[in-house]
């Protein structure tokens, strides 16, 4: 994951949790340290689904625009 500052991830995570799309849980990491685990909630899954749909629709639209040739215009 390449982001400008790694810390920016956290406000985003918090916002998602605040909106009820992901849930967090404290647990044990691989090396036996206390760590927080994030998982999608049912609501979040639905939201992801609908956002994915939207994205795909948009992507296909853009793709179809890019495929048009000059005669078609």
């Amino acid at each position, binding site marked *: 994951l390449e982001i*400008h*500052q*790694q*810390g*920016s991830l*956290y*406000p*985003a995570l*918090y*916002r998602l*949790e*605040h*909106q*009820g799309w992901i849930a967090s849980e*404290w647990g044990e*990491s691989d090396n036996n*340290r*206390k*760590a*927080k685990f994030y998982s999608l909630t049912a*609501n979040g899954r639905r939201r992801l689904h609908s956002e994915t749909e939207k994205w795909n629709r948009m992507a296909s639209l853009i793709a179809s625009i890019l495929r048009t040739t000059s005669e078609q215009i």
Partner: protein
Amino acid sequence: MNLLARFRSWLKWVVKGRKLEAEMEVEVGFHVESYAADLMRKGLSQQEALRQARIEFGGIESHKDAMRASVGVRCWAELGSDLRYGARMLGKSPGFTAVAVCSLALGIGANTAIFSTTKTILLDSLSVPRPEQLRVLRWEFPGDQPMHSLSGDLERTKAGATTSSSFSYPVYEALSQHGETFENLTAFENDIPEVVASVDGYAESVSVQLVSGNFFSTFQVTVAQGRALLPSDDVVAGGGSVAVISDAYWEWRFARSPAAIGKTIEVNHIPITVVGVAPPSFTGPRPGSGPEMFMPLSMQPIVDPSVYEGVNGKHEDGEVWWLAVVGRLKPHATDTQALASLEGGFAQVVKTTLTSKGHKDVERLRLLIEPGNRGLEKLHNEFTETVRVLLVVVGLVLLLACANLANLLLARSASRKREWSVRLAIGAQRSRIMRQALTESMILALLGGAAGLVPGYLGRNLVPRVLHQTAPVHFDWRVMAFTFAISLLAGLVFGGFPAWQATRTDVNSGLKDTGHTTTGGRSKALVGRSLVVVQVCISMVLLTGAGLFLRTLHNLMHSDRGFQSEHLLLFDLGLPETQYKTVASRAAMFRQLQAQIGAIPGVKIVTFSGHALLAGSSSTTNFDPDGQKFPQHKHAWRNIVGTKFFETMGIPIMAGRGFSDDDSEPSPKVAVINLRLARALFPDENPIGKTFNSEHIRIVGICGDAKFRDLRMDPPPTYYTLYQQFAAGNSATFEAKAVVDPASLTGAIRNAVRTLDRELPITNVRTQDEQIDGTLRRERLFATLTSGFGVLALLLASIGIYGIMAYTVSGRTNEIGIRIALGAQTGQVLRTVLREAWWLALAGVGVGLIVALAMSRVIQSMLYGLRPTDPITSAAAATLLVAIALAASWIPARKAARIDPIHALRHE
């Protein structure tokens, strides 16, 4: 769904903020350490790895802040810091804070005090179980009252009908028989008479509420001590000598001693047993006034013999309407059903008890039913009116205080322009600045509100006490809520504009040193000026009110009374009926008292009368001259007096003669009538020698008109008869004309009375002037409060004018400097500044005049001897305000005139 999740998450943060903060710390720490561990695995040293991890993570604190913001709790933390910062800023200018908080505290305090009184008087239900079931009965009649004698309330509706809540005893009995829709119907005297009660030999005057036997069960009042009055107490006229006393009376006479129950006290010299104490919450069926004792209706001949003059205790008399009737409706019964069930019986009893006396149209007497949850309140209760006027006055004062606050805040935000500019320049959002400013004004407002609770609490009983009302004013959570609400409102509304103004700071010009330029802040000054105009306007209204009430008081005090009130000492005296049974014995005793008191050195002349003058008491009777073909059934006022009444009171005899010692019990009955009565009933003939009321009372003289009941009422048509010929009551007021200070005679008079009868208490000793003052309590209260608030208004307005003028002058320093440099004279500069103040004041006075005129119509009925548009009052108030405005702007004007041009030009 989403909203719910957000709210839950927000709430979690608010409630468990500390724990979640700690977890956030751990989470971020874990990230950095894990990443550092990864980097170390790549071969970096521990120190270098940690450094690298932190750099790549970014600013830890700013990310944490963003995390808080994303769950919506950052505003929480911001509020805390705003509060801390605001408090620090206010602390830094204690003068400003003190003035703002004090003026608000005064305005809010006055409102709190008046509101707590208002709430008790106008809003609270009686504190009895289920007050919403109570109903008050009332009647309405098109035309003059159809019954011979009526006591209690009587009002005239706009349509010309008369209406009252007083009924006769026969009517009450009939209503009770038809009251199927009521659980109970109770009757009580529609008046609270004063009696002389002596406890352990100490006599004093207390008020008594006469009630029917089922009074306590109807109101469902449980007594705090002993027992309530029962129907078995109220059986035989003159019997049932028991009383339930009020909590207040128990407190101040018996010090809450349980021994009070069963104690025998004397009421009008008849022994009465105290059987119970009413609970503190129940002060009687009338909000705003409470009797000291409740006694059965059967005690009427002893407690209030004047109801049935001469015919002691004959409750059957259907012509005497004196009882209020209150019922408790059965659950689910409606007003319509209740009225329907009562109407038949009512019409029947009215017909049999009133028609027999020859009154016409009594079938048009209509029964009405009204909600009784607030007990028996008269529609135009004097107290209600007073409280309403006071509410308006204190409302204006609050508005004034708020305008002052807004003006102070505006000036302050102008002086903090630089600070706002710096904050904006380094990236503060405008909304943050606005919130900061609003927080500060809210702190001020809430401080003012909290401080206002103190004068509010202290002043809550002021109005009832001045008006001699005994209603306990409850200072409960609703009053607190009211105070809190007006503080919030004041802070929001009047702090809102200055706060918004603060956000409009122009960073560029704000950062430049000057702060004051000729063009900058024009709109701010405009708002400031409008506020000053508003202040002057409110002051004008308050001053006009003060002027009107002061002049009313002055007019009343200096109105022609028709008699000489100077050097008159008054006292009341009641002869115990047990000892002085016959009229002759009472007349003889009064004559002896007159002689004995008249012999005291320092007493010039002494008399007595049934009614003291200007004491709010009076009685009216029929006055029908004999031998008239068409009897007019006129009413006249009557006072039963001693032989020397006219000489003592200084009422001139205009024709015929006054009374003399030759008018004795056996000699023909005589009367003296006043000019007004003579003109009204004998317009074309000489009344002297005529007789009236078929009683062979002969008119022997005509006297001058004298005021009777109160100062506001013009002398009514009045006739006077002699006590020895019409000895109705056993008590009288003595009037002694003194040649020395009347108050110094009290001891001598007590001794003189004691030589005749050791047991005779004299009560209520006062001078006639004190007596008159007592009837002017309300006028005095208004005059004092409105003048006090008027002065306060002047002070606030002058602060406002001074502030705005000083602000203008300092903003124009440069310009004025140039003017002076170009040759303007001191006088010219002075005039320029004063002219502006003059226009401001004039605008405020003009608007205020219109508002005052509109509002003074409401108080028209409370004025005396002047119209609400009184030009003298308006002119005086306007002159005073303009003078104060000019005086307040004098200092800034002087400062402007003394500006040194060289200094001023460098100033920029």
